[in-house]
């Protein structure tokens, strides 16, 4: 063997110079090596190593003769099974003879000339037989006369082909060939499992060795394990033959095969021949398990298949293996499929050889016994280790197999596989089909009739006969662009769409629902006028439902797949789509809720909104769902995510709705409804519940919503000390209050813990100082009386509600300096203990927070009253209508005592209304001190926050209702627009800016900001050169 190997190598080196037949020679040699080995093994098992040669000699001669005899017999008897067997044997001998020749040439070491001649002479022959040659058992060193053998073989071969099995015979003749009682019988003999073939060979050898055996033939079937068939006249003959065989137990039962079944035993199962070149298979075992592979060569004799795979090779591991290092074997790790890249491999010092394959003549890259070509791995596997039936390659998989530039059209491979997977009744009358094979390829027609596998079609071309019959496999469904189709099988099953393009047998469909392209096989679709999304429902959940997911996130179902949903999650700004299983969905969110848009309009489902900022800016459509301030908008022009867009309510603008709180009188009723809704829902966590469009709502909201939250609000943001429990002694700031539990951010530990409410003690110092001066009782109380008469029944209501106002007031300020929408937001905040914790921006009491001074309420009031006076008939009405229902629900005696005073600034909210009509000047004095109306003043620089006119502007005039006329542009030379107070935001001055004081005793004064101290500004007044420390909030930058 060693010598041979060496030869091989030599030859390979010389390969290029050598002639083609030389190569052939070499191939054979290699093969022979293999077979030799096999044979040796076989020999060993037979235990007659020494006798081999003579035996084989005999083998050939005798068998040749025997076989001929047999043939004669066959002719007499005409038994079909026997013939088959005989044929097999003959084939066998042919091969022997052929190989033998080659062997001899090689071994005799004849002159080159002879060698070539012989080889040349053999060539034609080889071509004929090569395909089936492999199974040979090589024989060496034969001293036989080659010509003689060849002659014999040819003779017999010729004869055997001459003696036909009646292939041309008519059916009747065929019948005559069936076995009858006169024929030898077929016996089924049990043998060792897995050794069927071996046993058959052994028996054959025995027959050759011992002429007295009276069996006629032996058959081992591939699909039948544990048994072989022996043909003989009598059972005794079979017993005799089987005696002494290692693989047949002496006790084994011998069963007679009934005459009727004899033919069946040897009839070929058509199914098993399905495996053909270019068909798709799946691997059963190993790391490639489940991988798609393409058959490149089939060896039916050896039951082996060469397949082409996308390699899963860990180059790193391979490299280390080749270098002799023992790589740590990670069992679980299966490398992902990836095309093999030679350069990459070389970089890792993996030796890549380029060698020519002996059989196909193609070049392959060899790495560590693995064959590669074009990045694919070529692998020889047993037919048993692949799945051949019902392979449905997905489109992606096929794409991968497709070489760049290779047209799918020419890919008959996918076709052949598809055909194999067709369901019964694939074609129906009226289907448009195209012929894909045979002479009439590309003929179009319509199905007229289907009979089993035969399909009759009416061709499109008129000159042809009326109907033509085709085998089912020769036809493929045919569609034209523009056809409306439905996918009936495959991954996309259920989808419908319009054919956009036909690429061979692949259709590109524009899905009706997703407006996306889908690639499908023509075979998988039917023409249909139906429009569906496929399945639209699994369990309780339907397409376009808003659902709550496991991890408390939520989203809209945008597609229903076979077993899962695609959900567009409620994350604004960036669309996030997740695939979730049914069980991962917690529930459907079916509540009606609403949200506020940027201009504080209430958005409820079905309202049309436009997204004015963020990734989806400019999109517009009706709101389908609202949850936690997130809108799901359906834009039919939006192609992704089934048209759904997810956006924050705050980044949207209601289309067709007013951009201020300017809803008409008619709103009263609606408000009441909303208010009711709000107060009844105890978990007011969604801004969606945000109330009101008009001022009325504010009150209503405050009272209603404030109910549960008020007490908490006071606590939230406060510095407390924990007086018992595991955290006893810690100080911290309250983040959130939920029922009897309080979440506290510990000062010392930088973490948030949950403690019982009973466990905490107020430390009344830290957080409060901000408040105290502002809401000092002294300032406010005096006003109280003056107010009360006006709103006699208002006060009691207001009392409990005030706290939230106060707290709430601060929050918006913090988040957006000027809080154009403060009042409604307040309500929301009040009602929403949860949000305190969850949205840090709104957390009151956090140190960096800006003061929550009165101005905010002022701004709130300033707007609302203004509006309300315009729209709402009288304040009295408002109060009477809206808030009263909530009074009962307002718990009295909340532990908010310190703030009950603090609510007072809110109260004026009611107050300024009256004077509001009259004018600013009256109002301010009444309110006194830091009054609440941060009415704008002329010449103040503001930021306009209205849809189209964003940008700086200069206030030119303040109208009675609080709105003002603003000249756009930082120097005020742009267009004049009229804006509502909540659409503008005062530009906060910087140090040494010229300012105007908007509120307080010095309202209207101008000055210069000479310094900023936290939330206070140090201002030098222009008139008096006095230096005042004023809240930054009431300072506005003056236009230059």
């Amino acid at each position, binding site marked *: 063997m060693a010598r041979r190997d060496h030869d091989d190598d030599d030859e390979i080196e010389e390969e290029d110079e050598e002639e083609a037949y030389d190569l052939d020679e070499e191939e054979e040699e290699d093969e022979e090596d293999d077979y030799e080995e096999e044979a040796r093994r076989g020999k060993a098992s037979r235990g007659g190593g020494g006798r081999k040669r003579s035996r084989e000699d005999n083998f050939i001669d005798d068998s040749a003769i025997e076989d001929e005899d047999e043939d004669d017999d066959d002719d007499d008897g005409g038994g079909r099974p026997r013939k088959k067997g005989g044929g097999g044997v003959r084939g066998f001998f042919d091969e022997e003879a052929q190989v033998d020749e080659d062997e001899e040439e090689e071994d005799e070491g004849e002159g080159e000339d002879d060698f070539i001649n012989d080889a040349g002479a053999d060539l034609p022959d080889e071509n004929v037989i090569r395909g089936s040659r492999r199974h040979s058992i090589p024989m060496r060193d034969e001293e036989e006369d080659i010509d003689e053998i060849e002659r014999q073989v040819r003779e017999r071969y010729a004869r055997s082909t001459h003696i036909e099995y009646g292939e041309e015979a008519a059916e009747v003749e065929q019948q005559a060939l069936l076995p009858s009682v006169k024929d030898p019988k077929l016996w089924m003999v049990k043998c060792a499992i897995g050794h069927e073939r071996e046993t058959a060979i052994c028996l054959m050898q025995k027959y050759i060795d011992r002429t007295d055996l009276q069996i006629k033939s032996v058959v081992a079937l591939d699909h039948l394990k544990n048994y072989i068939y022996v043909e003989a006249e009598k059972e005794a003959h079979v017993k005799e033959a089987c005696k002494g065989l290692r693989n047949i137990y002496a006790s084994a039962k011998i069963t007679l095969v009934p005459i009727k079944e004899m033919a069946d035993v040897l009839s070929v199962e058509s199914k098993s021949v399905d495996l053909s070149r270019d068909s798709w298979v799946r691997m059963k075992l190993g790391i490639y398990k489940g991988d798609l592979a393409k058959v490149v060569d089939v060896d039916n004799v050896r039951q082996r298949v060469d397949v082409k795979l996308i390699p899963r090779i860990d180059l790193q591991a391979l490299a280390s293996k080749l270098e002799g290092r023992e790589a740590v074997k990670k069992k679980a790790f299966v490398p992902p499929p990836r095309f093999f890249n030679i350069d990459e491999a070389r970089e890792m010092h993996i030796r890549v050889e380029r060698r020519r394959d002996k059989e196909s003549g193609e070049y392959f890259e060899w790495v560590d016994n693995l064959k590669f070509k074009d990045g694919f791995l070529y692998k020889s596997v047993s037919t048993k280790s692949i799945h051949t039936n019902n392979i449905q390659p997905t489109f992606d998989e096929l794409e991968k197999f497709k070489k760049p530039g290779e047209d799918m059209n020419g890919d008959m491979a996918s076709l052949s596989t598809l055909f194999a997977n067709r369901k019964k009744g694939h074609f129906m009358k009226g289907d448009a089909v195209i012929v894909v094979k045979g002479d009439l390829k590309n003929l179009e027609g319509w199905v007229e009739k289907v009979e089993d596998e035969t399909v009759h079609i009416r061709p499109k071309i008129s000159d042809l006969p009326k109907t033509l019959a085709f085998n089912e496999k020769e036809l493929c469904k045919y569609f*034209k*662009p523009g056809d409306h189709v439905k996918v009936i099988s495959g991954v996309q099953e259920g989808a419908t769409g319009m054919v*956009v*393009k036909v690429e061979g047998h692949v259709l590109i469909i*524009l899905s*009706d629902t997703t407006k996306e392209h889908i690639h499908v096989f023509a075979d998988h679709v039917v023409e249909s006028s139906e429009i569906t999304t496929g399945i639209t429902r699994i369990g309780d959940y339907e397409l376009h439902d808003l659902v709550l997911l496991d991890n408390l996130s939520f989203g809209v179902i945008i597609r229903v797949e076979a077993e899962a949903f695609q959900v567009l999650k409620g994350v604004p700004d960036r669309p996030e789509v997740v695939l979730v299983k049914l069980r991962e969905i917690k529930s459907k969110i079916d509540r009606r809720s609403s949200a506020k848009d940027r201009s504080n309009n209430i958005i409820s489902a079905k309202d049309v909104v436009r997204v004015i900022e963020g990734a989806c800016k400019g999109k517009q459509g009706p709101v389908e769902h609202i949850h936690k301030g997130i809108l799901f908008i359906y834009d039919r*022009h939006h*192609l992704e995510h089934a048209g759904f867009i997810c956006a924050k309510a705050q980044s949207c603008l209601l289309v067709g709705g007013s951009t201020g709180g300017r809803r008409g009188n008619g709103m009263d009723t609606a408000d009441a409804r909303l208010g009711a809704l709000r107060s009844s829902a105890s978990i007011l966590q969604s801004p969606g519940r945000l109330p009101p469009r008009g001022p009325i709502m504010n009150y209503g909201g405050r009272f209603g919503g404030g109910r549960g939250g008020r007490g908490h609000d006071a606590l939230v943001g406060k510095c407390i000390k924990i007086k018992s429990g595991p955290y006893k002694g810690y100080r911290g700031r309250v983040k959130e209050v939920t029922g009897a539990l309080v979440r506290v951010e510990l000062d010392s530990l930088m973490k948030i813990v949950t403690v019982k409410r009973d466990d905490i003690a107020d430390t009344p110092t830290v957080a409060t100082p901000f408040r105290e001066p502002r809401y000092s009782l002294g300032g406010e109380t005096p006003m109280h009386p003056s107010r009360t008469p006006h709103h006699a029944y208002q006060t009691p209501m207001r009392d409990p509600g005030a706290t939230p106002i106060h707290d709430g007031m601060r929050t918006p300020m913090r988040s957006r300096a000027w809080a154009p929408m403060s009042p409604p937001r307040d309500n929301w905040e009040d009602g929403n203990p949860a949000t305190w914790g969850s949205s840090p921006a709104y957390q009151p009491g956090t140190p960096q927070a800006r003061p929550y001074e009165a101005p905010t309420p002022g701004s709130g009031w300033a707007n609302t009253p203004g509006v309300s006076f315009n729209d709402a008939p009288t304040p009295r009405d408002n109060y009477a209508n809206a808030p009263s229902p909530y009074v009962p629900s307002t718990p009295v005696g909340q532990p908010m005592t310190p703030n009950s005073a603090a609510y007072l600034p809110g109260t004026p909210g009611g107050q300024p209304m009256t004077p509001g009509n009259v004018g600013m000047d009256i109002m301010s004095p009444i309110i006194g001190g830091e009054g609440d109306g941060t009415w704008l003043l002329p010449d103040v620089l503001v930021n306009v926050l209205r849809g189209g006119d964003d940008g700086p502007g200069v206030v030119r005039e303040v109208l009675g209702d609080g709105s003002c006329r603003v000249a756009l542009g930082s120097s005020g030379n742009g267009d004049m627009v009229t804006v509502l107070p909540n659409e503008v935001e005062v530009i906060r001055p910087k140090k040494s800016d010229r300012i105007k004081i908007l509120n307080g005793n010095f309202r209207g004064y101008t000055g210069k900001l000479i310094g900023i101290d936290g939330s206070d500004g140090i201002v030098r007044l222009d008139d008096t050169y006095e230096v005042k420390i004023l809240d930054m909030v009431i300072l506005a930058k003056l236009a230059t």
Partner: protein
Amino acid sequence: MFFHIVLERNMQLHPRHFGPHLRDKLVSKLIKDVEGTCSGRHGFVVAIMGVEDIGKGLIREGTGYVTFPVKYQCVVFRPFKGEILEAVVTMVNKMGFFAEAGLVQIFVSNHLILDDMKFQSGDVPSYTSSDGSVKIQKESEVRLKIIGTRVDATEIFCVGTIKDDFLGDISDPGAAV
């Protein structure tokens, strides 16, 4: 394609409209109800040209509404397979572009755009030919051929192609007819 056809519709009228102007009311209501709607069979109703006949009204029990069978002439627009249309591009994306011819939305897949034209993403996504001479973007006018229609109860959706002679961008003033 536009058709001038006669259609019939049962109109319900509130009793408050009964009076000397009943007919006018009926017609104005008809126009309001019908114009701009789409029926799968006839396509979009573009305009009502006249009322041929108003049948006898039938009072509906319980409501007091009266149902009149009204025959009216109208112009309808219905796209057909193979029809050539001129349309305005409304949206361009990598899968193709959408165009509108009146109320009809037409999608032209990138497979049905000349291979020469490539999708250019960016601020204004467009399909541009390799030499840059032809550009289809939003607001472009294109001539296209309808290859398939899908007719819903309320909408007609078409798939079109510009992959044919004389089709494609026509917004260029030189090329426009």
